[in-house]
């Protein structure tokens, strides 16, 4: 039987290509999945897995998510209380933090305690945004990283961001990348996970990670 995956649409950019990448990963990994892009809380409630994407500024994204009536409450219910596997992508991952500090202080969902703050590289010559392909440093083993080579010789992920999540609990950080110091690349706590990079734009690494998420049993 096919599982259902809800990609939450709250007015933050194009989700069609994200949905296509999930369909491709499902097909390549042989995990039968129906991918729905939705702003309907009933669809999210019925989904086996939930994805929260996000592009743009933290405050804008938070406003957009709040504007979908009942969505935050639905996520609290099905992800936090019922333990449904959840993946946040880019700002969708940043929203898991306690607070975002971009332009203004904005409350996050608070699922991964910490702040989303400007990246401050130790080397002033480094460019912000952190834009392009970078490798991952695994902080601990995790099902989402299965079969993905990490380290300096590993696969690359596509990043484009100026702010990063500084998690209060070190054990919540699954992988970091380097941009004049460690930058949080992946977080996970229980059934909640997130990537700062864009798996839907990260070719080989991205499709493998999405496939891992589709088969993840937290």
């Amino acid at each position, binding site marked *: 039987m096919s599982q259902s995956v809800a990609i939450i649409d709250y007015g933050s950019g194009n989700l069609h290509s994200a949905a296509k990448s999930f369909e491709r990963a499902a097909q390549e990994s042989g995990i039968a999945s129906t991918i729905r892009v939705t702003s309907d809380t009933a669809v999210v409630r019925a989904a086996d897995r939930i994805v929260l994407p996000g592009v743009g*500024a933290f405050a*804008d994204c938070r406003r957009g998510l709040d504007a979908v009536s009942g969505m935050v409450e639905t996520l609290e219910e099905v992800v936090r209380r019922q333990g449904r596997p959840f993946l946040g992508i880019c700002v969708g991952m940043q929203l898991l933090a306690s607070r975002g500090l971009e332009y203004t202080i904005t409350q996050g969902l608070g699922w991964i305690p910490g702040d989303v703050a400007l990246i401050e590289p130790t080397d002033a010559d480094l460019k*912000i945004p952190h*834009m*392009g392909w*970078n490798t991952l440093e695994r902080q601990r083993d995790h099902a989402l990283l299965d079969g993905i080579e990490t380290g300096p010789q590993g696969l*690359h992920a596509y990043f*484009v961001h100026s702010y990063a999540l500084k998690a209060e609990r070190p054990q919540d950080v699954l992988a970091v990348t*380097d941009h004049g110091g460690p930058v949080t690349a992946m977080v996970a706590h229980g059934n909640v996970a997130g990537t700062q990079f864009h798996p839907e734009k990260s070719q080989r690494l991205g499709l493998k990670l999405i496939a891992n998420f589709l088969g993840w049993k937290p």
Partner: protein
Amino acid sequence: MPPMTLKTRIIPCLDVKDGRVVKGVKFLDLVDAGDPVEAAKAYDAAGADELCFLDITASHEDRGILFDVVTRTAEACFMPLTVGGGVRKVEDIRALLLAGADKVSINTAAVTNRHFVKEAAEKFGDQCIVVAIDAKQVEPGRWEIFTHGGRNATGLEAVAFAREVVSLGAGELLVTSMDKDGTKSGYDLGLTRAIADAVSVPVIASGGVGDLDDLVAGVSEGHASAVLAASIFHFGTYSIGQAKTHMAQAGLRMRLD
């Protein structure tokens, strides 16, 4: 210097007119060398780090075709896509992002209406706003902005203009030398470096690539974070793989997976 892991990007750029690649792409046996989606897929498979579409469609009415091209590309290629050409209004940006572009490049509109850059960055985030700067050298060490393919002088000094658009929210600059474009004699390294050293955001070098050493120089001497080229890739002079290997051998950090 601390060990750095962010890689230099290679960005093939396709000129698209009325939904077709201008002059075609000859480096692979494509079923339809004039189809931008086919070309994009080939570059995706070849390991390009990003793709750039520059729409040179003359009439505004035909823009719908471009959206269809972008949509079909985004469905088939899971890699970053920048689209530019004729972007003048917030609605233009929204339409391109909804079609599947990751970044949108603003050129003339950034010159004629600086506020547009700020409006766009606030609306969609700095990370998806690229400002394309077309410049010509007017005297040693001084470059000025030109619009309309290099025909219209503006009198604006390029480095000051670059600083200004970055302060307004541009997340990346695409710097093209109108003196070098099409000459195959290499990037204008003085221009590229002057701008790259003046701003905090990444700079893409563009215009004039003739061989693989030009790509290396764009980074090592021009201080660019990414290199853009068109004809050397489209006509099969060099493959993306050859370019990456050459740049890696020259000591640059490249993504080879």
